[in-house]
């Protein structure tokens, strides 16, 4: 710039002065086009899918007189259920206060304290281990209500201090106690699997149908928001014909392999061993059997009843496909050779040849579905639960993700126009995005990923068991039928038993839909096979 030019714009100066403007215009145009395009594409996909992710209406009011509840079984699940009701053990409250002091992100205590008040009283406890029963009495008794201990479940269910019972015992006691409670006119919440053998599954079904009380099976994931959204996805036939479902268990720690701590104070004097054994074969007192009962068929149900039952019901609550026509299972004890006789690796193939989620192709072309449950207690690699349809694949856990299939009929045009990319989700629903969660153990993470620990209501984290119990209590107070009633429980129990039978017998097990029974196998009493306390029969 020379002095002569000062205060006078030459043409050259003008160009240099405003040359940035066309660049601004170009960049703005490019950015705006891309931004608008992204928005339109997203809106178009969402409009096409029309998925309704709104939460269900809350169950009814909790007013009126408090419901008096008896707890039967106060080991691991029992205290968890009590917390979901709003009752924390003193020791748990102290440890949670300590944990949140150490880690401010540990919000287990604050979540518990913020839970809705369910207007219930714990009035009775029945646990066969004196220390645990006393723990419940000490923790939950108040100046007005002293928790009463009953030495047997029969006395508890017949007592007039309870109107409803929660059953969190070993599996072999679920049905006998539930039937006794129903016959005594008490409302029942029973943990999964609903029963331990075939015969008692029918007996419990009859007892529920003959009663006028409220019955709920403890599959709390039915309250998980992503599963409710998944129901809408299936209803709107977004996935097309689902031919394969995979569900998995991968756990690799002691807790996940049912190696629970053995309490030192447990002995033949502090444990009612005879009552624990119940209909199982009598053996001398064995603390490991008492605390780690899930490791034996005599008291537990192995991977099929303990964990697959959750996965089966997770799928059944979305698809309502019922009991499979046949099941083939295999596996073994490959990681934990510690005296257990239930498998720690198990694969279960469930066939539904007449079931269809819908189709986008010509009528009659597609029908039938397989669900594969694959489990190991020797590896923690996280595998997704996937619903694989002709038009899309849906992954469901605490979040929900849908991918269009590259060869989809329904989305063909959108894929060709590149509006949909088969490698990029066309829909994602993650209620956790609004909050940060603290997960404290590998097994807790396993359950959380499956939507079994908590869900979200209005962006706030809520214990799904709390909601499941709330639904049960609402039905007791306001009428209605819980989401996991006897039909759902019957289907879960029979499917679990078929998987266990197939594993033990090393052969296919068929279901007779017309007769609603497992087809007999010549030479075997299926209930005896199921209960037989050995790894495999064949």
């Amino acid at each position, binding site marked *: *710039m020379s002095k002569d030019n000062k205060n006078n714009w030459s043409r050259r100066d003008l160009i240099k002065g405003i040359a940035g403007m066309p660049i*601004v215009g170009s960049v703005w145009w490019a950015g705006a086009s891309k931004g608008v395009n992204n928005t339109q594409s997203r809106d178009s996909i969402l409009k096409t899918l029309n998925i309704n992710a709104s939460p269900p209406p809350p169950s009814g009011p909790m007013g009126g007189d408090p419901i008096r509840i008896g707890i039967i079984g106060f080991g691991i699940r029992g205290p968890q259920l009590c917390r979901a009701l709003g009752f924390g053990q003193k020791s748990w409250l102290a440890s949670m206060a300590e944990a949140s002091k150490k880690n401010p992100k540990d919000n287990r205590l604050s979540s518990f304290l913020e839970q809705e008040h369910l207007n219930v009283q714990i009035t009775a406890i029945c646990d066969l281990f004196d220390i645990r029963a006393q723990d419940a009495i000490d923790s939950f008794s108040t100046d007005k209500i002293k928790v009463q201990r009953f030495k047997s479940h029969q006395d508890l269910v017949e007592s007039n201090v309870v109107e409803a019972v929660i059953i969190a015992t070993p599996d072999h006691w679920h049905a006998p106690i539930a039937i006794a409670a129903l016959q005594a006119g008490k409302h029942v919440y029973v943990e999964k699997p609903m029963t331990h053998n075939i015969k008692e599954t029918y007996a419990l079904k009859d007892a529920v149908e003959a009663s006028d009380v409220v019955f709920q099976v403890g599959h709390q994931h039915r309250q998980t928001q992503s599963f409710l959204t998944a129901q809408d996805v299936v209803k709107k036939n977004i996935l097309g014909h689902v031919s394969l479902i995979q569900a998995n268990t991968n756990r690799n720690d002691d807790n996940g392999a049912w190696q629970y701590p053995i309490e030192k104070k447990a002995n033949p004097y502090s444990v009612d061993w005879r009552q624990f054994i119940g209909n199982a074969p009598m053996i001398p007192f064995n603390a490991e059997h008492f605390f780690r009962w899930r490791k034996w068929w005599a008291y537990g149900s192995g991977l099929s009843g303990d964990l697959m039952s959750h996965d089966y019901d997770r799928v059944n609550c979305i698809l309502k496909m019922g009991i499979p026509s046949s099941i083939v299972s295999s596996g073994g004890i490959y990681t934990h050779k510690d005296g257990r006789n239930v498998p720690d690796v198990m694969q279960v193939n469930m066939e539904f040849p007449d079931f269809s989620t819908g189709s986008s192709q010509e009528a009659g072309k597609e029908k039938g579905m397989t669900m594969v449950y694959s489990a190991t207690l020797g590896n923690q690699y996280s595998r997704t639960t996937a619903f694989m349809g002709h038009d899309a694949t849906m992954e469901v856990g605490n979040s929900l993700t849908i991918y269009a299939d590259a060869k989809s009929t329904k989305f063909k045009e959108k894929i060709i126009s590149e509006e949909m990319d088969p490698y990029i989700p066309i829909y994602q629903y993650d209620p956790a995005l609004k909050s940060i969660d603290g997960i404290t153990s590998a097994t807790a993470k396993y359950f959380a990923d499956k939507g079994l620990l908590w869900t979200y209501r209005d962006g706030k984290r809520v214990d799904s068991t709390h909601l499941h119990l709330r639904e049960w209590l609402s039905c007791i107070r306001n009428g209605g039928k819980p989401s996991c009633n006897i039909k759902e429980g019957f289907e879960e129990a029979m499917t679990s038993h078929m998987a266990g039978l197939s594993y033990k017998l090393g052969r296919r097990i068929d279901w007779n839909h017309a007769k609603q029974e497992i087809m007999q196998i010549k030479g075997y009493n299926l209930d005896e096979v199921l209960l037989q306390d050995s790894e495999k029969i064949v």
Partner: protein
Amino acid sequence: MKTDINLSKTGRNSLILLRILIGWHFLYEGVLKLYNPAWTSKAYLSSAELLKPLFQWLSSDEMINLVDNLNIFSLMVVGLSLLLGYFERLGIVFGICLLIMYYIAHPALPGASQVGTEGSYWIINKNLIEAAALFVLYHIPTSAYFGLNLLKKKN
């Protein structure tokens, strides 16, 4: 706005080119976000590893809309000031602050996870390099030679 550093014409033009490229980048990022209402910095901020309380607060429900809008506004201010050559130094200061915030949220430090980056970095990443380039432009401004500031000076 002149510098006492003697630059050849080629040197000066090189810096002008650098200014345009950085301005281009900032403006495009800002406009793209402005026209894409679904965009949010929530995931980027809430997954920060350094100064977690600060970034958690910024990504909280109460703050995130303000933070997103401020981010878009700042990106565009930086882009426009660099491309148009007006309030150049103010834009550069905004730009350096933004880039340092991005760096602190996800620094290229050994051991820190570098999710979403397309290259390999050790301590120095592209955010830091772009911030350093802006630092140079702050000390050797060029809007008096190319941009609206040239016209203002001559007016």
